[in-house]
């Protein structure tokens, strides 16, 4: 063993590991220059390849998407009848160009998905904008169909987005119809079906299928009234029998390619009274 450590190879290995350790510590303590330098090198390539594959969908996929969209439109129309109040406000919200108009306090930044991590459980992705564009950690990420997630980490030219399907997502939410409040968070089982969960709701809560769940705005991370999804099922936890609702986001989180980052909005970072 002593002979091994006196070899030239072992000395090079130890020196390399020492450098890695220093870089790891620098990164862990929030120093962004390592990741920024790396992103600078790889983002150009990722942008090119992501753009090349953007329209790469076969006929069957497009057909099934079209059918789903038609069904979705029909569902939304039905709900619109019931939720006159919410629907008109929401349908305006879903369009970027109207988003800013209806929410003058929103600072919005469009971005494209350039990478998806193959080794991550909850479909997180990287977008092509970072601190140089004004993005910071915890900024909400949305599309015209609702909340997608939040910025988990950021460097100069790119940002990692944790999706609404992840257990790391903890968004204060309310049922727009009943006013019941809770937390929207993900799980592995639900994420496979592009679903998330409306948890921490009262055992006697009157939430039901078809209800629209929106952000509460409490906590200052998300503005109020951003759509999270609609309830598709009511279930009880296997372990503690707590009631929760399964939510289907209006966007296919696994396939989203273009998003908008809300870099600023009214009451950002302010915790409202009554927050947990």
């Amino acid at each position, binding site marked *: 063993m002593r002979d091994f450590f006196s070899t030239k*190879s072992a000395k*090079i*290995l130890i020196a*390399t*590991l020492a450098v*890695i*350790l220093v*870089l*790891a510590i620098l*990164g*862990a303590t929030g120093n962004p220059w*390592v*990741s920024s330098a*790396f*992103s600078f090198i*790889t983002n150009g*390539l*990722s942008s090119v*390849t*992501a753009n*090349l*594959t953007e329209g*790469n*969908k076969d006929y069957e996929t497009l057909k099934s998407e079209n059918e789903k969209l038609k069904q979705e439109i029909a569902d939304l129309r039905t709900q619109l009848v019931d939720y006159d109040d919410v629907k008109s406000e929401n349908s305006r919200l879903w369009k970027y160009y109207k988003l800013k108009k209806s929410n003058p306090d929103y600072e919005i930044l469009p971005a494209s*998905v350039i*990478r*998806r*991590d*193959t*080794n*991550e*459980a909850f479909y997180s*992705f*990287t977008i092509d904008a970072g601190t140089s564009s004004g993005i910071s950690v915890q900024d909400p990420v949305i599309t015209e169909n609702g909340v997608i997630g939040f910025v988990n*980490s950021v*460097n100069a030219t790119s940002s*990692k987005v944790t999706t609404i399907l*992840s*257990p*790391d997502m903890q968004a204060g939410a309310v049922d727009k119809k009943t006013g019941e409040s809770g937390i929207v968070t993900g*799980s*592995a*089982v639900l994420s*496979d079906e592009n679903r998330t969960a409306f948890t921490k709701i009262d055992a006697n809560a009157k939430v039901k299928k078809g209800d629209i769940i929106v952000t509460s705005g409490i906590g200052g991370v998300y503005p109020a009234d951003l759509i999270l999804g609609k309830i598709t099922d009511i279930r009880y936890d296997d372990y503690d029998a707590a009631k929760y609702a399964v939510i289907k986001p209006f966007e296919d989180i696994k*396939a989203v*390619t273009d998003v908008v980052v809300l870099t600023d909005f009214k009451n950002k970072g302010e915790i409202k009274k009554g927050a947990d």
Partner: protein
Amino acid sequence: MDRRYTVFRYLAYSLELLLLFILQTTPRLLPEIFGSKPLLLLPAAITISFFESEIPSMFFGLASGLLLDFGYSDNVGFFTITLTLSCFFIGLIFRDYLVISFLNATVFIVMFCTSLLILHFMFSYVFAGKGDVFYYFSHHIISRIVYTFVCGILLYFLNKFLYKNLRDS
């Protein structure tokens, strides 16, 4: 001494790693099988180490680890450290103690892909308390290990081809 072919070979390995990184991270490029995509850089670094001595192996392991870590967490971490160490020792073992054969390669690809992916699963998922551990392991990790292994066999033949055809006499 003319080391032209060695330089070309290293360039070819570098290009291979870059292409695999793009293939692995570009949305909609690789098909999902049972909800998983392979980690191509993992077997790529391991199979390069079969043919190279410990120091070049270590650096290719380091490069692969950095690409894997930055693709995942924007930070130097698990794969950088484990692949640097693993590739160093694989390079050492195949230089001094083992002959390069398909059987040996298969055993090493299975052993390292399985152990590193399970270790990563433990650190990034189980210890992080993300829940549904058994479900996630059975529905994603097992298929990812198998998919990565199958790609590893193909990468073994690719790197064997590069080594044989880009070698100084």
